[in-house]
């Protein structure tokens, strides 16, 4: 078993409320590959890097820094399953570490809640932990049931890739690491033209429904047409776009009705590779759930 540091589990808001089976899978399956998690009840919403960041920058920085300070008090690095949480916490962590004046200003605000940001911990997404701590080659040797025959289109998602100088995860214009994860599970990673296309979540959030449907459809039709049996992501917003969003988009984009491309969360794919059945990973909770053979 690889020696991976224990991580403080930043669950975020979306997974516990909307996709609790993902939370459960992470707690059950990640220790099998050496990733131990500690839960924490005093985190708040990260808060999100798309909407809340735009409301009031000082509040966004301070709320994120409060979460970071909690982890610093425990002396533990943070791991999250959500691209949005990663982006907020990693960007704030990075910027406060690099900019003493900003750090001083945020700490002045944090005095209101008796916290201080010191810049002593790291923030990682599960995919970064797999890449940097476990290693994809090592992960491959730990897989119990290689997903041979399953063809998966990887969708790392925008907020896992940028800003690259902060996240240092992969090339945002030609990402490969998520494909390496797919290959480590034994599945075949499918390349497709729209791989780096955004899932379009802001179109959904801002009410641009038809545009949102077009965005989702373009990506899923391309992935399916490229040979994928499923698309996989490590972001709950992207997951929801491709799952529930696919059902909704199919009403306005007839070609999508035939597509029926299921989405598998990163930890679901991992759980399958560790021997869990589709029923055990909560596949029955998915809106799009054609039978898949592995």
């Amino acid at each position, binding site marked *: 078993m690889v020696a991976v540091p224990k991580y403080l589990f930043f669950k975020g*808001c*979306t997974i*516990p*409320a*909307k996709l*609790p*089976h993902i*939370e*459960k899978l992470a707690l059950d399956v990640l220790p099998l590959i050496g990733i131990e998690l500690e*839960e924490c*009840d*005093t*985190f*708040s*919403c990260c*808060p*999100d*890097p*798309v*909407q*809340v*960041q*735009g*409301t*009031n*920058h*000082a*509040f966004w920085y*301070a*709320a994120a820094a*409060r979460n970071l300070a909690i982890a610093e008090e425990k002396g533990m690095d943070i791991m999250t399953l959500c691209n949005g949480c990663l982006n907020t916490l990693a960007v704030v962590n990075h910027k406060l570490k690099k900019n003493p004046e900003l750090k001083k200003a945020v700490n002045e*605000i*944090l005095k*209101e*809640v008796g*916290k201080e940001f010191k810049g002593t911990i790291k923030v990682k997404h599960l995919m970064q932990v797999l890449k940097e701590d476990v290693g994809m080659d090592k992960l491959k040797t730990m897989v119990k049931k290689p997903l041979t025959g399953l063809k998966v289109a990887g969708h790392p998602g*925008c*907020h896992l890739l*940028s*800003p*690259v100088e902060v996240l240092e995860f992969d090339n*945002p*214009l030609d990402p490969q690491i998520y494909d390496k994860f797919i290959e480590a599970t034994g599945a075949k990673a499918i390349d497709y033209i729209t791989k*780096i*296309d*955004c899932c*379009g*979540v*802001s*179109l959904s*959030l*801002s*009410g*641009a429904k038809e*545009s*949102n449907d*077009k*965005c989702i459809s*373009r990506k899923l039709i391309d992935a399916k047409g490229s040979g994928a049996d499923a698309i996989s992501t490590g972001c709950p917003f992207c997951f929801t776009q491709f799952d529930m969003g696919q059902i909704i988009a199919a009403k306005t984009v007839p070609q999508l009705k035939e597509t029926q491309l299921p989405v598998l969360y990163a930890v679901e794919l991992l759980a399958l590779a560790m021997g869990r059945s589709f029923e055990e990973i909560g596949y029955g909770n998915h809106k799009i759930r054609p039978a898949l053979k592995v």
Partner: protein
Amino acid sequence: MEIIKIKYEKDEIVGRHFTSEICYKCSACSKFCPITLHVPAYDLENSFVVHLYRAEREKALRDVWMCCSCEKCFNICPQDGDPAHVFVNLKETSYREGFAPESVYGLVNQLLNAGSAYVVSVSTNKGREKLGLKEIKANEGVVADLKKLAAKTDLKVKGGSGA
């Protein structure tokens, strides 16, 4: 080549970012911007980025919320421009002046009431219980902290005077 001039308060935004001054409308960002690609009002020549630089003030402040900060424009811009961060700043102005979508003001209310982004129903917690997970409930200490941070940073709640 045309240099884009923005119509709204230049100093407010440009004072923080030089990006909008250096855009020469090459359309590189258009190929990746999900708004340009999928919203009929925009195309490769008239991208969402250029729209936000050029639009009348109120239109820009309303439309900016379609930006999801995917940063593809930043990654591809040959001028090392950073429209994504200009638009984050624009969102702040928009929110403060009441032009953000109602859902965003609702999200802030929710955060300050519960510490998390979603109202959690009884059925959600029943589902969690079935999975052997702890119930989600508002943590009073977390909520109190967020309200203090909101007050200190003057985060406005629409229709109210702040947290």
